């Protein structure tokens, strides 16, 4: 039966049961307004939902009942027994209609003139003294033995079975709890089995085997309760495609197969958005306009086909379109332009490999960015999301005849099979899904496989391929090896299309583990995806192949630069490149702003812009958002204006730009010093000079009281060690590049207590810049604290504030600040810092 229909039946029967009860109560409490309106509402809902499903008989019956109930509720007539009887009869009829609906899947033919007529008489005679029951009697007598509906219905009611009675609504929390319970049970069983294995003969052997079996079955059943048909994630797609098609002037038919394919709720939630994004992409970029299609000899209506099925422990989702296909040459050119590969390299790559570039971060074309305006996601995000849940995504495309994406995702994430490995004295679990191979390596040349080293970077030669290797012991900084171990193992793991090796000291066995999230304190560690309890009762960390893969590529990328400290170099490399949004505004020079600062890209209609005094604003997501122009920008020729939306806390602002050009991974390397105004400096992006835009300039322009909220933290590197303390993440991301470009090694934190905690851990800095107004502990308290302890007392502390009244400056000096900088005066920040530090170092 249709999912929708069975939901409707379950819900409506619940409502009817409540109505029965409440109507009976109404007879004894005829004046209870709460009861009356509850009854009215329930009937109204029944009317609404049946109308929605096109169930005409149900709807008209419910409608007639509702009318009468409405009069009762509004006090136009009094409740009497006859009336209640009439309503209850209608309920019975509704119930019998539902029963045959459940049986046949369709509303039975026939009509309910008898009841509706009586109800209408009732409604019309509101206030009149006529007894509704009397009006009903003859009709009811007829209805007692009506032709098809009631007889079929009566039987169905009698057997009281069917979908509605078979399904119970259960809160998701309860399911989660059940799953947790079963997980614990699985762990305990594993523990018992492990104990049993150590004993030759045991009286427990037989019952444990039985327990083992029961638990396995239970686990499977409970998992099934969490399953959802993937079709639920597809419900919004037909509408999306329809709207897109009409917006873009295309003709698109969406076909969906295998909507009933089930997958775990958790996986379901994670896959929903990427899938929607991909379908949108297909319709947007894949399918050509009707004229174009006709010219190519294709049918005018393009097809987007979505298909899902089970295969092994996976759900496979195939999305294909018969559009223009991916342009290999453009991808090649783009890859070269972005410095992802050289011309010679791309020449050697197969088409399939070239296609993989579309999943690289920042790899997109200008056209794409505008089309996904307001979303800020690309195929790299899709891939990351899919890989995060242990899935893979692959793409095939033929120029002119379409593109196919194949997504494979595991059925469930809750219980996975894992390989247990050892490094130093610790054990770790690696999910089997990511493991492709296990290789034993030796250090001497006689070994079949050995690790070779290029400038400190270990590499494994495996069947004509060279794989980057991460050494788990080093990656996790577990300390040096006590004794030279001649033999190691390399776990070959695959993340997406990338293979890499993880070198471990020992390999134990595989075990079914229940993935539990790590404690909040440890959430920031990208190397671990969770933790679990092993059969022997010990806690073990689960390695995240994605996090390790990133570390592997980084250490491979860093091979040319520095050899040692695989982990450290990796982190540093990540800190140095930033995703930049490149756009054009004002003059012809491309402008760049960190993508992390841009909340959304929007295209607004010019006529939606309003003015408040001289400020241009638009209504945006329920609030007024100020708009700012680039200096010297003219209004665009068309009817729309592209804007970049910046959000901090509850405030937002739109920056008008002419054109979005690209998104690129850029190492922030400022070539020219600060030029004032909105320009932080210049940099080179993809071989072209670009202005680095200081979003803060426009923010202060649009919202004078901008800086002053929230948390998190980041870090970078340079010459002087600088601690930047400010609770506004926005301000920190503005200041970081500025200070780093001036050669400072910046550590940014958002909370004075975190800063003091760093002191406890022995961190030291050449200077500290601190905000004044921060929640919890103010800058004044912070500086007093710093100066009261000999460890940091000698470090110059500069106050940073939006206030610059002399009184504030005096108070700051009194509290122990060495200098005072006004936030809006960013140029002087670097100057004052440099002066202060040069002074300090020459004095020392």
């Amino acid at each position, binding site marked *: 039966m249709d999912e929708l229909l069975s939901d409707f039946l379950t819900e409506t029967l619940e409502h009817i049961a409540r109505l029965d009860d409440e109507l009976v109560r109404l007879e004894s409490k005829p004046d209870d307004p709460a009861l009356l309106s509850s009854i009215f509402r329930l009937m109204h809902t029944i009317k609404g939902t049946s109308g929605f499903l096109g169930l005409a008989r149900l709807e008209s019956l419910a409608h007639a009942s509702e009318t009468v109930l409405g009069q009762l509720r509004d006090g136009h007539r009094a409740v009497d027994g006859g009336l209640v009887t009439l309503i209850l009869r209608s309920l019975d009829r509704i119930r019998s209609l539902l029963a045959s609906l459940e049986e046949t899947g369709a509303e039975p033919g026939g009509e309910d003139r008898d009841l509706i007529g009586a109800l209408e008489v009732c409604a019309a005679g509101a206030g009149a003294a006529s007894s509704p029951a009397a009006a009903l009697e003859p009709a009811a007598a007829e209805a007692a033995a009506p032709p098809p509906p009631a007889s079929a219905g009566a039987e169905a009611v009698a057997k009281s079975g069917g979908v509605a009675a078979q399904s119970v609504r259960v809160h998701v929390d309860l399911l989660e709890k059940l799953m947790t319970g079963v997980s*614990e049970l699985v*762990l*305990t069983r594993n523990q018992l089995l492990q104990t049993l294995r150590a004993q030759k003969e045991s009286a427990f052997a037989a019952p444990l085997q039985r327990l083992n079996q029961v638990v396995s079955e239970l686990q499977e059943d409970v998992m099934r309760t969490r399953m959802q048909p993937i079709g639920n994630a597809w419900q919004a797609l037909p509408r999306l495609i329809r709207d897109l098609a009409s917006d873009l002037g295309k003709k698109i038919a969406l076909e969906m197969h295998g909507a009933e394919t089930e997958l775990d709720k958790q996986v379901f939630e994670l896959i929903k958005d990427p899938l929607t994004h991909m379908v949108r992409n297909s319709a947007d970029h894949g399918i050509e306009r009707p004229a174009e299609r006709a010219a190519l000899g294709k049918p005018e209506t393009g097809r987007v086909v979505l298909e899902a099925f089970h295969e092994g422990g996976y759900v496979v989702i195939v999305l294909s379109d018969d559009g223009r296909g991916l342009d290999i040459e453009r991808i090649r050119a783009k890859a070269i332009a972005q410095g992802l590969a050289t011309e010679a390299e791309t020449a050697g790559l197969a088409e399939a490999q070239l296609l993989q570039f579309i999943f690289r971060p920042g790899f997109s074309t200008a056209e794409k960015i505008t089309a996904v305006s307001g979303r800020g996601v690309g195929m790299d995000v899709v891939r990351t999301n899919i890989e995060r849940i242990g899935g893979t995504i692959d793409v095939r495309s033929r120029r002119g005849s379409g593109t196919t994406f194949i997504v494979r995702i595991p059925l469930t994430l809750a219980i996975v099979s894992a390989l247990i490995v050892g490094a130093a004295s*610790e054990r770790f679990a690696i999910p089997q899904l990511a493991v492709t191979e296990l290789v034993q390596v030796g250090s001497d040349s006689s070994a079949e496989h050995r690790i070779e080293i290029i400038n400190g970077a270990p590499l494994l030669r495996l069947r004509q391929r060279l794989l980057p290797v991460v050494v788990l012991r080093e990656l*996790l*900084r*577990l300390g040096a090896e006590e004794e030279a171990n001649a033999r190691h193992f390399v776990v070959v793991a695959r993340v997406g299309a990338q293979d890499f090796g993880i070198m471990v000291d020992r390999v134990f066995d595989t075990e079914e583990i229940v993935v*539990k999230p*790590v*404690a*909040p*304190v*440890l959430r*920031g*560690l990208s*190397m*671990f995806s969770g*933790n*679990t*309890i092993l059969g022997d*009762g*010990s*806690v*073990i*960390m689960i390695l995240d192949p994605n996090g390790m893969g990133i570390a592997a590529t980084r250490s491979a990328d860093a091979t040319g630069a520095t050899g040692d400290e695989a982990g450290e170099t990796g982190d540093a490399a990540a800190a140095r490149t930033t995703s930049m949004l490149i756009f054009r505004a004002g003059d012809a020079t491309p402008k760049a702003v960190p993508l992390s600062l841009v909340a959304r890209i929007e295209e607004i209609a010019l006529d939606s812009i309003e003015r408040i005094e001289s400020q241009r604003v638009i209504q945006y997501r329920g609030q007024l958002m100020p708009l700012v122009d680039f200096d010297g920008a003219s209004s665009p020729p068309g009817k729309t204006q592209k804007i970049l939306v910046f959000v901090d806390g509850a405030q937002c602002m739109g920056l008008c730009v002419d054109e979005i050009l690209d998104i690129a991974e850029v190492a922030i390397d400022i070539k020219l010093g600060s030029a004032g105004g909105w320009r932080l400096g210049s940099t080179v992006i993809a071989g072209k000079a670009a202005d680095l835009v200081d979003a803060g300039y426009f923010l202060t322009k649009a919202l004078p009281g901008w800086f002053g909220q929230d948390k998190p*933290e980041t*870090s970078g590197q340079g010459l002087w060690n600088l601690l930047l303390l400010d609770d506004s993440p926005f301000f920190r991301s503005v200041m970081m590049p500025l200070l780093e470009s001036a050669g400072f090694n910046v550590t940014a*934190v958002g*909370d004075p*207590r*975190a800063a*003091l*905690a*760093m002191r*406890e*851990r*022995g961190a030291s800095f050449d200077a500290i810049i601190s905000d004044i107004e921060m929640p919890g502990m103010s800058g004044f308290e912070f500086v007093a*604290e710093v100066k*009261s*302890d000999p460890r940091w007392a000698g470090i110059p502390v500069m106050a940073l504030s939006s206030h610059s009244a002399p009184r504030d400056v005096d108070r700051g000096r009194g509290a122990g600040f060495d200098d005072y900088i006004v936030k809006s005066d960013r140029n002087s920040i670097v100057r004052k810092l440099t002066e202060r530090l040069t002074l300090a170092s020459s004095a020392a």
Partner: protein
Amino acid sequence: MSGARTSAPAAPANADQESQDYVTVLVGAQLFGIPVLQVQDVLGRQAITRVPLGPPAVAGALNLRGRIVTAIDTSACLGLRAADTAPAEATISIVVEHRGELYSLIVDQVGEVMPVDIASLEANPLTLDPSWRDISRGVHKLQERLMVVLDIAALLDRVVAIPA
């Protein structure tokens, strides 16, 4: 434990009573008191799994009857010992709940549960080490020595706030 969990407010003063029950613990040479209602469990020696790259105040994770509990190196957290010196031997620890998660605070010794006269509570002395001010809810003047009332929430918030 999992059945009757108490997530008591920071310092539940026994409203009508004049005394408050504390579990007393020694961290280094300092005596601390933890309001008894906040203590879920006292654990003996436990196998602790290290968490590489984790924050210095986190000693690792341990299995408490099927729940994974984060073990906190209390003395490092209080600045009584540099975190990178020998890791704490988890000989004894106090299990507390904070924001829905269980933590086991490794201490050096656990004493008895002691009813303490509320009147003997003093505000933090001005000379108290500044880094302790936010984790201390005051000092009780016991007969033979002083007992610092440990603010569990503040202590654990501090662990969470330290960037890894």
